């Protein structure tokens, strides 16, 4: 049995939940585990990606991420269904919980994997996206965390059955307190989960010029990002910084505007399926990594893209 630990937020499944179940269903029969307050009707949707059963610990104390409590819950669920393999997202939660589960269950951890096992190994990106490593896996006990946006769920109309799971916690399982949770997304999609990302660099000349980037992003349903120099000088918030020392992302489409494409920046974005580069310098190294390019001034090009995106949206 494969146990898929899915994350929820505000009573709904996170985007990664279906990715995790989809990945798990490529390994065997899937039981999912969800924690905290979420309606059964929402959890039943996990059947669409291949879960037959969902275990639900509806304790509202689990609405916040407490790595020790989560570890206890996951180990309890794994014991209940005799799971050999536990799959979760390589999200902030997965990074805090998967290593604990791996230590507690004494089984190897495959962290940040991007694809199902193939020919005796699982592929993950290393060197911040500059290379891949194939990690030996011949089956057997494992904890696997998968990179967000690596797996495309193929949905059916099946529903999973939802069963409550009892698990008792004590104070030690909640070994810190979450004092405050501040939403900084401004209602936008979190960057690591975004399928389309529009990103600006020093070529934008100043924070006051971000309007068109935000407008284009909104029209495309995209998240916004930036290069390191832009975050360093405070034109944009640090959580938008993508690159080797920022966030590594893997969207379907990455549009880089006024970013030259230093090796450290490329490392964070070069797994994007399609890369568009807009830069007035034809020698910008980013063009070598691009699928589509426009050699031109961002301030001339952006209004044309916005106009075309509006037309596309109207025709859809």
């Amino acid at each position, binding site marked *: 049995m494969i146990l898929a630990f899915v994350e929820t937020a505000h009573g709904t499944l996170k985007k990664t939940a279906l990715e995790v179940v989809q990945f798990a269903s490529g390994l065997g029969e899937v039981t999912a585990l969800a924690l905290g307050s979420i309606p059964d009707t929402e959890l039943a949707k996990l059947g669409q990606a291949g879960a037959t059963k969902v275990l639900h610990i509806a304790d509202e104390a689990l609405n916040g991420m407490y790595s020790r409590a989560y570890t206890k819950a996951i180990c309890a669920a794994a014991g209940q269904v005799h799971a050999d393999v536990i799959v979760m997202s390589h999200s902030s939660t997965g990074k805090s*919980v998967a290593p604990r589960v*791996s230590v507690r269950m004494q089984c190897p*951890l495959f962290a940040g994997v991007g694809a199902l096992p193939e020919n005796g190994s699982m592929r993950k990106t290393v*060197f911040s996206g500059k290379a891949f490593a194939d990690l030996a896996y011949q089956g057997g006990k494992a904890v696997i965390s998968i990179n967000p946006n690596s797996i495309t769920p193929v949905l059916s109309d099946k529903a999973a059955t939802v069963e409550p799971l009892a698990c008792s916690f004590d104070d030690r399982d909640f070994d810190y307190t979450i004092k405050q*949770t501040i939403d900084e997304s401004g209602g936008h999609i979190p960057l690591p989960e975004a399928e389309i990302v529009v990103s600006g660099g020093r070529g934008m000349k100043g924070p006051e010029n971000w309007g068109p980037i935000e407008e284009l992003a909104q029209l495309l349903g995209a998240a916004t990002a930036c290069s390191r120099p832009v975050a360093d000088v405070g034109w944009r918030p640090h959580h938008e910084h993508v690159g080797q020392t920022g966030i590594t992302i893997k969207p379907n*489409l990455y549009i880089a505007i006024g970013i030259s494409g230093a090796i450290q920046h490329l490392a964070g974005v070069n797994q994007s399926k399609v890369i568009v580069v807009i830069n007035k310098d034809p020698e910008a190294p980013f063009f070598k990594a691009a699928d589509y390019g426009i050699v031109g001034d961002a301030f001339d090009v952006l209004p044309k893209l916005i106009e075309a995106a509006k037309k596309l949206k109207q025709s859809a």
Partner: protein
Amino acid sequence: MQLLVCISKVPDTTTKIAFVENNTKFSESGVQFIINPYDEWYALVRALELKETLGGTVTVINCGKADNEQIIRKALALGADDAVRIDLDASDAMQVAVNIAAFAREHTFDIILTGKETIDYNGGVLGAMLAELLDLPYISLASKLEVQGDVVTAEREIEGVKEVVEGKMPCVISAQKGMAEARIPNMRGILASKTKPLQVLPAVTAENTVHVNAFSLPADKGGCKYVDPENAGELITLLHSEAKVI
């Protein structure tokens, strides 16, 4: 307060990655090695700042062979009081965690700090493994860290959300951008680093749980298709009907 900072040796961020021995080994030829930026810029510098305001010591620990001592000396030059190198050619986070935990059990630390991940293997799992092995709280992805008495307050920047978390020492914390500003060692620090204690300890036996069969590089793109800037709107059409991504 006693602070332990875990540091890893990684290739410089500008390194062009290549592999040798039939793609089973990272090519170190001509590579400049540095302290993993998250470990140095944020975890170590914040530990030094806490020591400067609250008193105590900062110990750095690294798992590696003798050639890692160059980066360990840099940590000492930045201001760490002493260093430990566990003589282990580690290839697995679990091995590193078991070894650092074995050392930490023999000593008393209020906070164990790691970077949020290394820029070579990108696991980001060491801190949580240590916390589990040492039965400690773990606060991950902290972009801010304050200490008052035995209470730590951290800000965690996670998927579109900032969380303010309060916990008690001893604990394990992973650091990310925002926690501190990178420092450059000064001449006094560099001179002092040569005589600061650097203890070498034998590794404890820990199974290598994950093996790399082979490394590979991403396939080259098929070349860039250029769109005329005068007719930039055409790009949207291509992305919609050719690339099918919007």
